[in-house]
């Protein structure tokens, strides 16, 4: 069976976040997830795209963020691709929620939300092509 997929390319501007999260939520529903799970997928995608816009592209709005949504038999995969500053898997450090609550501060929660709401979160940095990727996977059922 062929796996369906589609792509959306947006400018690297936060004004398009609502569009992207709406799409992610609808994609999760189409994949067969319930409303609560679809909402979590949309939050994870918001965080991932926000990270690309604010950190990989340092808030510069003239770049592109590409979302590739893949429907497989077992999961929904959302790949977020960009040419900004990449991050390697070994550079990812998740904050400890208990420590965070003891010492409240701004920032640092996006990656934690992504990891809690998705089944798999991975990062790839391709130094050769300059194309970097964040991959979010939510299993169906």
């Amino acid at each position, binding site marked *: 069976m062929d796996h369906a997929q589609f792509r959306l390319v947006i400018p690297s501007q936060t004004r398009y976040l609502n569009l992207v999260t709406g799409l992610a939520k609808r994609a999760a529903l189409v994949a067969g997830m319930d409303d609560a799970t679809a909402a979590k997928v*949309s939050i994870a995608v918001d965080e991932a795209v*926000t990270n690309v816009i604010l950190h990989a592209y340092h808030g510069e709005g003239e770049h592109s963020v590409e979302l590739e949504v893949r429907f497989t038999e077992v999961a929904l995969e959302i790949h977020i691709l960009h040419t900004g500053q990449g991050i390697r898997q070994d550079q990812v450090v998740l904050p400890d929620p208990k420590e965070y609550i003891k010492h409240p501060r*701004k920032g640092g929660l996006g990656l*934690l939300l992504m990891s809690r709401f998705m089944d798999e979160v991975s990062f790839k940095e391709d130094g050769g092509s300059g194309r970097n990727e964040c991959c979010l996977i939510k299993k169906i059922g």
Partner: protein
Amino acid sequence: MADLSIEVQEVDGVAVLLPAGFINAHTVRDFEEAMEALVKGGRYTILLNCRDLSYISSAGLGAIMGLIETVREHGGDILLSNLQENVFAIFDTLGFTQLYRVFGDQGEALAAAAPERKG
């Protein structure tokens, strides 16, 4: 329709902030400014009534986190009420329901805020 609109009410001596729509990296500055204006005006007990809040990302959580110490140092607090299921899930997943007092409705929150108002 705007992604976020914010209404501020004064109820029984408590500043009640009602965000409607989405709080994300695009809208968070408006939310932050509304909260900061209350604190600068000496309003240290703030109730966030989230009945019309569809969604909050970590940007919004960071804005709340950024003010919690200030209001508590002044004897106040930030309370939450009327959280929709997905908004509650975000707070609860991160353990924030231990950090903030969460109420089912505005009336319960206002009753709990009474001691702070007297102080």
